[in-house]
């Protein structure tokens, strides 16, 4: 009987050990609200992109401008004026993708200029590409508009609470006239409190 009990315990231990090998990994909803810390997170990025794209696409002069044409836009860098390291290009990438998919705007990709230039040089100068089928120099379309902006934050804290305020501003400027055709702002406030369990 005692041997049977020992065997059962050993078997249970083996089963438990087999179940608990390695860390527990699971997939989550990428669009779910994320509140791990008060730092800039995925929910902030997605909310900023969705709000500003909605604002731009519903602004009456922009609706009129994009009714019969798809203006060409280039995206400048977003200045990160916060104290955090934030990949602002990721925010503009989301904005750019949503605008492109709306069918209202087209973009020139300034992040790929060097690679494009190298490819054109290869086609023209390597002698490996049929000149009749090579892409010609000097035929690219120039951008009519520029998207640029700022991300700033105000952080305040006391012994128990941390308050973070983010403001993202995005502007659409007409490159020929210099006129700012649209500007949009998104503000986010996050408050973190120390709880009994986090002490």
């Amino acid at each position: 009987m005692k041997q049977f009990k020992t065997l059962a315990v050993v078997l249970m231990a083996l089963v438990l050990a087999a179940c608990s090998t390695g860390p527990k990994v699971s997939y989550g909803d990428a669009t779910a609200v994320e509140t791990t810390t008060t730092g800039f997170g995925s929910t902030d990025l997605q909310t900023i992109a969705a709000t500003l794209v909605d604002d731009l696409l519903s602004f009456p002069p922009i609706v009129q401008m994009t009714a019969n044409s798809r203006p060409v836009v280039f995206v400048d860098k977003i200045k990160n004026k916060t104290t955090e390291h934030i990949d602002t290009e990721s925010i503009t990438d989301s904005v750019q993708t949503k605008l492109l998919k709306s069918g209202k705007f087209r973009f020139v990709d300034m992040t790929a200029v060097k690679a494009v230039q190298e490819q054109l040089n290869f086609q023209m100068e390597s002698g490996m590409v049929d000149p009749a089928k090579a892409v010609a120099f000097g035929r690219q379309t120039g951008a009519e508009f520029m998207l640029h902006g700022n991300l700033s934050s105000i952080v305040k804290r006391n012994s128990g609470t941390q308050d973070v305020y983010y403001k993202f501003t995005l502007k659409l400027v007409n490159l020929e006239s210099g006129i700012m055709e649209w500007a949009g702002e998104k503000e986010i406030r996050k408050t973190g409190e120390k709880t009994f369990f986090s002490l």
Partner: protein
Amino acid sequence: MNTYHKKALPLVLSAMLLGGCAVNETATVAVDGNNKQQILESNSGFLAASLEIADTKVGYAGDLMKAQVTIKNGSRSDLNFHYKFKWLDKDDFEIAIDGRPWTPLSITAYESKTVQAIAPNPTAKSFRILVQD
């Protein structure tokens, strides 16, 4: 308090705490392009009982559909929940899946709040709003 109760109480309390953290309910409102149809689909008791869709409006910004939903908190306590818009084309295929994030919203007791969204492209013909806590 005997030994059994001493052991059982923390277990029951832990279970209640964990249960309280794991509430995840979703309710859906579907509205077609003519603003005629409203269906409240719900697998939740709490949100469906507390929230009421007071009004829905559908309009256009150029050829892009825009939607406005007024949500009313009919309960006597403040509600913190998340909402998300889904856009559907004329054949009820979802457009830009995961294109919009769950957005947090707080509504105080008996208050109404309005949320808006613009369709991701001109093929959108109806929308749904999902809420979860």
